[in-house]
């Protein structure tokens, strides 16, 4: 059985009267990719900063490989490659100088130059000349070059073009195969689904649920927009998993949770002028998640088994 790399117990952080995170219990196992989902201000970044010893917990504890993240932060940081959410680095330095600077703290300089090359980053320029995407590439390089057993990334694909995102996904898969544990946050559900083994959903500073990715897929939500040549077929709004049904002339907009095939069959005999299927935004998933019958806010999702997954408290709080 894989050991736990990250363990938080009753982890709480208050900024005065504002709650950053509240009684957060989380376990991330060795070698897994754990996606951390939540809207802005939910507590993702605060949790990551607590893990990095950048914030002092108000209550509770966080540990990485059995080292307390606050009391033994220097040792912890030797074991972690960290990508902050808003990478702010020294603007006057060039990319290669910054790679050498981080290497001076024990990271692998050659790995840094290799990652930079793979991400097609121009490291000869000063950071003040970098675009948002270039800064993100450099920050990724600096996080990965530590060759640490744990990588923590706060929204790693922010500002990256699709090609570079693809390269990053490849790198993360390679890291996983090499036994590296990865904790990352994102607003992008599709991205989380693509690369994670498990997903934690955090809301208002509390862990709402932790699910395996297959379980999250069962909750799959799509926004569908169909324009028919003539009238839409009858009974679309009564198909399983349909919600938010809106009919305007020949155009139908709806949300679909779960299997898409019944809908495709229902419209198969009708001439379609346009069809757009988009993965639901995180907000849609949250709304869907919390509006499910019989569920309290913060309760476990249907079919998730989240309460039993991974460790204490992951099933959420009420």
């Amino acid at each position, binding site marked *: 059985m894989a050991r736990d790399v990250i363990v938080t117990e009753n982890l709480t952080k208050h*900024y005065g009267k504002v709650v950053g995170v509240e009684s957060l219990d989380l376990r991330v196992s060795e070698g897994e990719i754990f996606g951390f989902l939540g809207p802005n201000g939910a507590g993702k970044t605060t949790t990551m900063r607590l893990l990095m*010893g950048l*914030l002092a917990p108000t209550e509770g504890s966080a540990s990485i490989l059995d080292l307390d993240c606050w009391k033994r932060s*220097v*040792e912890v940081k030797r074991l972690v490659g960290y990508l*902050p959410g808003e990478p702010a680095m*020294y603007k006057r330095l060039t990319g290669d100088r910054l790679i050498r600077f981080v290497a*001076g*703290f024990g990271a692998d300089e050659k790995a840094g130059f290799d990652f930079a090359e793979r991400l097609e980053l121009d490291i000869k320029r000063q950071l003040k000349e970098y675009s948002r995407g270039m800064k993100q590439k450099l920050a990724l390089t600096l996080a990965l070059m530590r060759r640490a057993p744990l990588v923590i990334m706060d929204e790693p694909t922010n500002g990256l073009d699709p090609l570079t995102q693809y390269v990053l996904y490849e790198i993360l898969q390679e890291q996983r195969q090499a036994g590296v544990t990865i904790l990352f946050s994102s607003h992008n559900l599709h991205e989380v689904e693509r690369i994670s083994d498990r997903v934690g959903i955090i809301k208002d500073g509390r862990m709402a649920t932790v699910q395996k990715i297959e379980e999250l897929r069962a909750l799959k939500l799509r926004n569908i927009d169909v324009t028919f040549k003539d009238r839409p077929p009858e009974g679309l709004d009564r198909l399983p998993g349909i919600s938010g049904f809106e009919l305007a002339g020949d155009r139908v907009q709806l949300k679909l949770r779960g299997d898409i095939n019944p809908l495709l069959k229902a419209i198969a005999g009708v001439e379609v002028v346009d069809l757009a299927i988009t993965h639901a935004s995180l907000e849609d998933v949250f709304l869907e998640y919390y509006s499910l019958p019989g569920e309290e806010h913060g309760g476990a999702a249907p079919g998730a088994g989240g309460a039993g997954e991974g460790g204490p408290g992951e099933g959420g709080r009420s």
Partner: protein
Amino acid sequence: MNLNFAKKVFGDRWRSTTVYCVAMSLYVLMLAALYPTVSKMSQLKTQAMPKNMLKFFGLQSFDLSTFTNYVVLQLLSFVWIVVMVAFVVAWSRAALAGEMDEGTMEFLLSQPIGRAPVLVTQSLMMLAGMMVLVVVTMLSVIVFGAIFFAHKMTYAGFAVFIPIGIAMFAAVAGYSMFFSAWLSDRKAIMASAGLTLAFYLLHFGGTYSKPISKIDIIGIFHYYNPVVVVTKAHFPVWDFLILLLFAAVFFVAAYLVFRRKDVT
């Protein structure tokens, strides 16, 4: 102290420190160039000054008949203080509050370096830069004085003054670093400059009022008397130690604040 971080701080700061050094040297050169003209009017000037003003500058039995005395009055009693305070306050602000506000502190502290080494490295580098500026200024006075007014120069006083100048601005550095650890960027500057000005005004007020002069002992300018140190080549051991103690207390306070500070 962390050597890797120290190299980075040096890379950031050597240019501005050099600019300060060159500017101070040029200012001393200008004083030397102007001194022959100024000295002719000096007697009139000192006689026209209010008695308490003379006392504030330590001028009761003081004249500007030598370049040494002129430097003490024109440089060490005012302009140099302003320049040194600006140098120290700007550096200490950037060291912690600046890094915090720009977000680079998160990047730095996500590397395997503790908060104590960050503070110690920044403080030692700042003190080293400040010492260089003090020594360069005094050397400029000695060199230009020797070139222009060799027969009227006394050198020992300036050599004795170096450790006093260092202790004085180490004290300023101490509370500036404390404010930098505690407050945000702009507030740190305002607090450091404001406290320095308050100490200066307290010392100034003390020359007019006996009650104020009694509380002047809590301010750093009470222990900074360049007239006595330079003209008499007298090393005030207690003043030196008190200034160092003042610096040490605030550096420790800065650490106590910084070690618990949230990096956001």
